[in-house]
């Protein structure tokens, strides 16, 4: 479980996050949604400690993280798997080396076992046998999937995904969503997914947090999103033609 309290963040004089609190439960995907530029990625980075929040607290299973000392931070970080918006693959390493990297630096697994684990993860994201390609030789969607494989390879307790399915075709996109859902339930981990893909929201939106200009305007389950009464949320959700049709059914 991850809990955040009153997170504030400004860059120079621009306020990006204005006091966000919430709880992200174990064992089901938690979604953060909102339109482009509202601060979703910044919030995610505040939670994992890549950007220090100006104000506010982050708890990883009751361990306070933002003000923790280096040892506690390192300990928590070794339990974090993260998929970045652009994949963030190490471009001097092959696909296999990229996925194996967390195992190399965080564990003392023997080489053969590591390789088995890497192949297992690559297979789960549908990239079996692509081990020796370089990141520059694969497509954007494939990079994302390698990024996911790298994020889950270490069996982390906390999984963060920044737009796991932007730039993917609908079919692969659903595959990835299902994968995230499966992993979350199977290993009972805490997963936070940032997205603006309505398909994902409808598919895996068990717990949705809607951000608007740095504030949390709505929170709830995918079954409740038709009648929230929040104007900004409706504008976001029903910008999509299909969703508009659904609403008028």
């Amino acid at each position, binding site marked *: 479980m991850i809990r955040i309290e009153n997170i504030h963040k400004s860059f120079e004089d621009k306020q990006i996050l204005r006091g966000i609190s919430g709880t992200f439960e174990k064992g089901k995907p938690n979604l953060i949604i909102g339109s482009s530029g509202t601060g979703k990625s910044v919030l995610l980075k505040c939670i994992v400690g*890549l950007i220090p929040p100006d104000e506010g607290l982050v708890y990883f299973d009751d361990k306070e993280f933002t003000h923790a000392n280096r040892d506690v931070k390192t300990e928590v970080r070794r339990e974090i798997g993260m998929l970045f918006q652009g994949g963030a693959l190490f471009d001097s390493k092959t696909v296999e080396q990229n996925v194996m990297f967390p195992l190399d630096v965080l564990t003392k697994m023997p080489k053969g076992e590591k390789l088995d684990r890497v192949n297992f993860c690559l297979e789960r994201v549908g990239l079996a046998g692509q081990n020796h390609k370089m990141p520059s030789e694969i497509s954007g969607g494939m990079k994302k999937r390698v990024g996911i494989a790298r994020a889950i390879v270490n069996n982390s307790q906390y999984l963060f995904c920044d737009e796991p399915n932007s730039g993917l075709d609908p079919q692969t996109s659903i595959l990835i969503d299902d994968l995230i859902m499966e992993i979350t339930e199977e290993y009972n981990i805490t997963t936070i997914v940032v997205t603006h893909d309505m398909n994902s929201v409808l598919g895996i939106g068990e717990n949705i947090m809607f951000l608007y200009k740095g504030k949390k305007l709505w929170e709830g389950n995918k079954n409740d999103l038709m009648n929230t009464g929040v104007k900004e949320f409706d504008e976001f959700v029903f910008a999509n033609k299909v969703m508009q049709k659904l609403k008028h059914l």
Partner: protein
Amino acid sequence: METIGKYFIFLGSLFVNRESFKTYFKLTIDECVSIGIGSIFLVALVSFFIGAVTTIQTAYNLVSPLIPNYVISLVVRDMTILELAPTIIAVIYAGKVGSSMASGLGTMRISEQIDALQVMGINSASYLVLPKILGSVLMYPMLVIIAGLLSIVGGYLAGLMTDVITPTQYIYGIRFEFNEYTVTFALIKSFVFAFLVASISSFKGYYTTGGALEVGRASTSAVTQSVIAILLADYLLAQLLL
């Protein structure tokens, strides 16, 4: 001023929370290979011609029959060992190795690769930069030694081809009142320059923000600032140690 403070904090951060020795060893060897192979050709080419040109120009300037010919190679020797090999090559080194370090790290920064390392609990500055500095400090003095040798060979061949000095005179001049301290001094300089280029360029690259345009800027400013630092250090070292 603020930047200089940030630079020293950056240097300090390289030494906390490090990975295992084995990790650094492997990364440092990789850096050594890429630095060495990447710059040897240019360094060799430049130093060879510097030696050749210095010989011809010195000969051209020494027209008096009172000055013996071997003074030409003596001048070539002292100039290349003391100044041309360590300093001029350092400027070239900054342009080649420094800029590629800065743009490499800058690209890793903007494509969130540095964030990815950080999230895994790795001290990204130390993991990425320390091997670069170690590699640079190990390889650059070797490049300077090669450069010094090749300059002298270049001068020899130029003398031979243009008949401004005979081989015997050239060799005599090279050995005449040779002071070993000049070599020590050149090596001290090269350690300092190698450290400056690698650390300044890494600093610039590591703190890149923005996009591809800023990576280009970081790499240009890494070269400019490395060169300034080299020249300042050159002056200070000459005052302190000569």
